[in-house]
């Protein structure tokens, strides 16, 4: 083997082992530091209780609800939008326009979330406040709108990629049968690329759950359990960001490890489900 190849192989090994080790170490770190919570049996208590530091109740249930409602709602808005956009880019739109649209979407993936948050505070929040006439406009709905914009590019790019993998002979067959474009999408492309759609959806969910800045800036961060989408809510990520600033030693700080573990488990489950989809053989029809 040539020297260069030898080094390249070693380097790739090193990179792979390092990234694996870091992932495992981070989880280990959180579990070890969160150990006092497990030992005291408080861990499961935390998951079901409200956050009232003045009354020594340090539950993170409202934040779990906040995270899930904001990210799922955001995904709910983003999914149909992305599906339509991808169909337009891949099939429906004229070539030139589709190309411009795709480039724009690619550009959007690079926009930092703090920019969305910033724009959201000054444009979206006042609109939501005036339209619904309830609360401050800093609420689950505003945050999920912004998250929708955030995750759309991820989904659109995934969807178009999987749409483009549909064999040309299939599409030609539709044309030969006299099928129109809508039929092509509904009966050939969507059934063929469901796997890619699911993968994109799950990755987008991971991205939506992990985002901190949008929720921190726009969702309002109230610790009460939200009972409508117009209520202010706090996500797990924003909660970590807010509490970590205050203290390194109190019990409040220790509960952050519970937040970390929960978030970690959420994303692990998401990653595993992506894997299990990918590893199954292609569905034959």
């Amino acid at each position, binding site marked *: 083997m040539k020297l260069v190849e030898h080094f390249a192989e070693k380097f790739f090994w090193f990179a792979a082992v390092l990234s694996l080790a870091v992932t495992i170490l981070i989880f280990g770190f959180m579990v070890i530091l969160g150990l006092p919570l497990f030992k005291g049996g408080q861990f499961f208590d935390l998951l079901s209780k409200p956050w009232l530091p003045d009354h020594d109740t340090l539950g993170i249930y409202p934040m779990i609800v906040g995270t899930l409602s904001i990210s799922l709602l955001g995904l709910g808005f983003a999914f149909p939008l992305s599906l339509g956009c991808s169909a337009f880019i891949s099939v429906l739109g004229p070539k030139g326009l589709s190309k411009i649209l795709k480039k724009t979407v690619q550009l959007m993936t690079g926009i930092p979330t703090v920019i969305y948050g910033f724009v959201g505070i000054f444009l979206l929040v006042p609109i939501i406040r005036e339209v619904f006439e309830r609360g401050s406009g800093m609420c689950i709905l505003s945050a999920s709108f912004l998250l929708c914009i955030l995750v759309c590019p991820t989904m659109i790019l995934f969807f178009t990629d999987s749409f483009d993998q549909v064999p040309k002979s299939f599409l030609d067959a539709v044309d030969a049968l006299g099928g129109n474009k809508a039929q092509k999408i509904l009966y050939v492309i969507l059934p063929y690329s469901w796997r890619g759609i699911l993968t994109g959806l799950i990755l987008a969910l991971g991205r939506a759950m992990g985002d901190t800045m949008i929720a921190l800036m726009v969702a309002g961060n109230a610790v009460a359990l939200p009972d409508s989408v117009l209520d202010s809510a*706090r996500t797990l990520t924003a909660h970590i960001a807010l509490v970590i*600033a205050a*203290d390194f030693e109190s019990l409040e700080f220790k509960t952050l490890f519970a937040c970390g573990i929960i978030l970690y488990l959420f994303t692990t489950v998401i990653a595993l489900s992506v894997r299990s989809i990918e590893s199954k053989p292609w569905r034959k029809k």
Partner: protein
Amino acid sequence: MTKTYIRVLFICCAVCFFVSPCFSSTLDTFEGQSGTIKISGGTAHIPVMKEAAKRIITFNSDIQISIAGGGSGVGIKQVGEGLVDIGNSGRAPTDEEINKYQLKMFKWAIDGVGVVVNPKNNVKSLIKTQLVDIFSGKITNWKDLGGLDKTINVYTRDKASGTRAVFWKKALDKGEITDKANFVVSNGAMKSAISNDPYGIGYVSVGHIDESVAPVALDGVVPTLENVKQGKYKIARGLYSNTKGEPSGLTKKFIEYLFSNEGQQIAADKGFIPVK
């Protein structure tokens, strides 16, 4: 990053700079110095820190000064852990914190904490019990206070905030703050939240009150610089800069500068009450 970092990094400001003759003696101590000063913590302090940093760096571009926010708790912790040279706090560090980190504190100005609403709000005066009830969530509509029939949106700060600590102790008498309150992370963020929300109520450092938000008189006393100075407005606190042990080198010079006539003038210009 998750926090609002306000980072000032003025590099190489001026090819030709102008230093007013009457000030030159104060800034002279920075002559020939070089290095960096890292500052973090209290967000009320930031306008003064920025102005002082600007003047020092304009005078001597070999000095770099970085200024971050985070809140008083963060300032005390970071200076104690040696992450920054100066940790600002809008409350006196507790005895525990002083002992643990061997903090040396320098109180260079006095500041009030005022209740603010949106300028469009016609409720401009409250009595203390009303304020306590608003923040505890007992009064939830502006019409109960003579305003519009709109829900009150309460804004508060996170636990790291010295402004919150002082407000909670002196204005709310350590009363409860409703769990429906929105959280913001700095005095600046509070100001922009209130100036954007016609039905919001919050509290900021008196030095930060400007035309974008309207101060609310508490028991008939408007939170102004003058009223804080005369002792009429009671919700006041010192602004502290803390160092770990005795300050030395550039850090020492920076703190001396804050106590110089020029430094105290900056504090006064930014809406605080100088201690000298």
